[in-house]
C-alpha cells in the first residue's frame, strides 16, 4: 500500500547566509500493508511529522521514492498531489483543523464538495457517517460549540467521508483526556476492522501505539531496527 524507499531530507535553518544543515530524515525505508494499523513513535524532534508530511505530499523529500497505491508521488506537481490526496488520503490532526465557519455537518461534507458530488448524495453519505461516529445530535454545531472529543470525531468523519484507503493521524489524541482518547481509539479500531482502512498513526503515547499492528520507532531521522514488533 505504501512503500517508502531510502527517503532523505535536510532542512536549512537559521539566518540567510549562515544556514545550518539539519538532516531530519536519513535513508528511511519501510512498507505499510493494506489494512494495517501502523504506529510511528519516537522522541520529539525525531522527524515523525516530517516523514508523514513527505508521504502525504505536503512537501517533497530531497531524495528517495514514495509509492502509494502503485503511484510514485514524489514527482507529482501540486495540482496532481491535491487530487491524489483527495482520492487516497484522509487526515486526522492533533488540533482537529476544522473550518471554524462551517458546521460539523458542513465540515464533514467539504471533501465531497471538493470532489464535485451533488448536494443530495452528499447529504445521505454525511448523515450515515454522522450516525456511525455518534454525532447526529450536534450536526448543526460550529466547531467552537463542540467538545474536543466531538471535534476529533468530526475530523475523523471528514477524513473518512470519501472512503479513502489510507488515513494519516498525527497525534490524534494529543489534545484529548484519557477517557475520550479511549473512545477515539475504539473508533479507529472499529473503522479498521469493519472498513479495512489502513492507518498510519504518529504518537508518543504508548496506549495509542498499542492498538497498532506494527510499531516503527524513529530516532534522529532513522528507524530503530528491531523495534518493528507486532503488537496484536
Amino acid at each position, binding site marked *: 500500500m505504501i512503500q517508502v524507499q531510502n527517503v532523505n531530507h535536510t532542512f536549512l535553518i537559521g539566518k540567510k547566509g549562515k544556514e545550518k544543515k539539519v538532516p531530519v530524515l536519513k535513508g528511511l525505508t519501510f512498507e505499510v500493508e493494506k489494512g494495517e494499523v501502523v504506529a510511528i513513535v519516537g522522541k520529539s524532534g525525531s522527524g515523525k511529522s516530517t516523514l508523514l*508530511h513527505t508521504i*502525504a505530499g*505536503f*512537501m517533497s523529500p530531497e531524495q528517495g521514492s514514495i509509492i502509494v497505491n502503485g503511484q510514485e508521488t514524489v514527482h507529482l506537481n*501540486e*495540482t496532481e498531489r*491535491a*487530487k491524489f*490526496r*483527495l*482520492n487516497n*488520503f*484522509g*487526515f486526522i*490532526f492533533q*488540533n482537529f*483543523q*476544522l*473550518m*471554524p*465557519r462551517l458546521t460539523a455537518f458542513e465540515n464533514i461534507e*467539504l*471533501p465531497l*464538495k*471538493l*470532489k*464535485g458530488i*451533488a*448536494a443530495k448524495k452528499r447529504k445521505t453519505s454525511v448523515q450515515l457517517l454522522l450516525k456511525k461516529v455518534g454525532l447526529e445530535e450536534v450536526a448543526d454545531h460550529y466547531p467552537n460549540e463542540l467538545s474536543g472529543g466531538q471535534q476529533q470525531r468530526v475530523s475523523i468523519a*471528514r*477524513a473518512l467521508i470519501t472512503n479513502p484507503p489510507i488515513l494519516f493521524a498525527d497525534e490524534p489524541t494529543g489534545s484529548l483526556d484519557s477517557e475520550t482518547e479511549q473512545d477515539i481509539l475504539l473508533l479507529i479500531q472499529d473503522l479498521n476492522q469493519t472498513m479495512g482502512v489502513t492507518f498510519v498513526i504518529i504518537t508518543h503515547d504508548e496506549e495509542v501505539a498499542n492498538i497498532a499492528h506494527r510499531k516503527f520507532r524513529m530516532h534522529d531521522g532513522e528507524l530503530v531496527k528491531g523495534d518493528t514488533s507486532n503488537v496484536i
Partner: protein
Amino acid sequence: MLFKDQVDFVSQHIKKNKLRVFMTVLAATMGCAFLIVLASIGFGIQDTMRKEILEDQAITEVEVYTNNGEALDISQISEVEHVNAIVHRTSMDIMAVSQLDERSLEGNMLLTNFVEEEKSNLQLSEGRMPTKENEIVVGYQFAENLLTDAERKEMEKITEEDAEPIGGYKESLIGKTISMSMQSYEMDEAFPEKWDFTIVGVTEKPARDWFVDTNMLVDESWKDKFQEVYEANAGNENPDLFYSSTKIYTSSLEHVKSVTEELKEMGYSVYSVSEQLEQLDVFFMAFKIGLIFVGTIAVLIASIGIFNTMTMAVTERTREIGVMKAIGASPKLIQRLFLMESAWIGIIGTVLAVIISYAVSFLANWILPMVVGAALGEDEFQDLSMTFSLIPWQLVVIASVISISVAMISGWRPARKATKIDVIHALRQEL
C-alpha cells in the same frame, strides 16, 4: 467542486465580512459611476451636436462640384448606386421682382427640374409640384414678404429685430398668378419684359428659424429665354449670370456615406452630412477616450481597496486555506474562489454604478437645462434641446469591462498568494 458550491462558498465568506466587503463595493461603485457619468458628458454633447446637424438640413443630401469648374457628368453620377435624385439648381445673379395686385417682392429665382425635385422628396407645406412650364413653387415666407409700398415703408421704420412682420399677403397663394420681371442689381428699373406665373406650391418652413425663404422655383426650360432678355437689356454678356449647384439625394441616410465615397473616387469635391458627422465623430472619439481614461483612474483608485480587502481575506484565512489544500483542494480551485470573490465585488460595484449613473444622468438632464435656462434667460434657451449626459449601452459595456477586469486584476495577486500558501506552515498556525 461544482460551480454552485463554489458560489455558495464565496457568498458565505462575503456574508461573514459584510462591512468590509460593503465598503470595498462602495469604493468600486463610486469609481465606476464616476467613469460612466464623466464619459456620459462626452456622449451627451456629441448627441446634441449630431441632432443639430441632422435637423439643420436635408440629411440625404450630398453636394457635388468639380474642382476645376467643369460640368458634372450627370449620367455617370446617376449610375452610382442609391442615388435617388440629382437636383441641379441654377440661381441667377439678378433680382426677380414679383407683382401680385399692388403687392410686390424682390427675391431670388432658382431654375430647376421639378421631376428631380419631386424625386429628391422636396416637401411642400401647401399645394403640389408644377407640371406645366408656367407653374412655380414659392418659398414659405414668400407670402408674408409680399408687401404694399405703404407696408414696406412701415417695415423700414422698425429696427427691432424680432418684430412680427407687418402685413404681407394673408390668403393662400395657391392658384394665384404673379407677374415677374427681372431687375439687374446695378439698375433702378426692372426690365420691361414681364411673365405670368401661377403659384401651385409653397415649400415647407425652413428648419432654421432665422432662415427666410422667399425664393421662387421656376422650371429650367426658361433659362435660355432669361439669358436672352438679360443680354438684350443689360447690353453685355455676364459670364457669372448663372450659378449652379448640384445636390444628390440618396434613398436614405445610411447610403450617404457610400455615395459620398464613390463620388470622391470619381474625382469630385463632395460635401455631405456624413462628412460632417465623420469629423464630429473623430473629434468626439478622442474626447470620449480621454474622458474614459480619466474615469479609469478613479476605478484604479478603487481597485486599491479591492486589493487590500482580498489580501486581508487571504491572510486571515491562511489556516483554512491550508486545511483545504491538505484535504485535496487544488491550487487552481483556491485561486478561482478568491478571484470569484473579487469579481463579485467588481460586478456588484458595477451594477450599482450603472444604476446610480443612470439616475445621475437623468437628474442632470432634468436640472441642468433649468439652471442654464435661468442663467441665460428663459426665452433664448427654449429652442435649445440639449442633452448633457447620455449613457448608451456601449458605455455601460466599456465601463463594466474596465471595472470588472480591474477588480479581477487587483484580486489576482492575493489569489496567487493563496495558492502559494504552504500546507505545513498553515496548519501550524494558532487557532
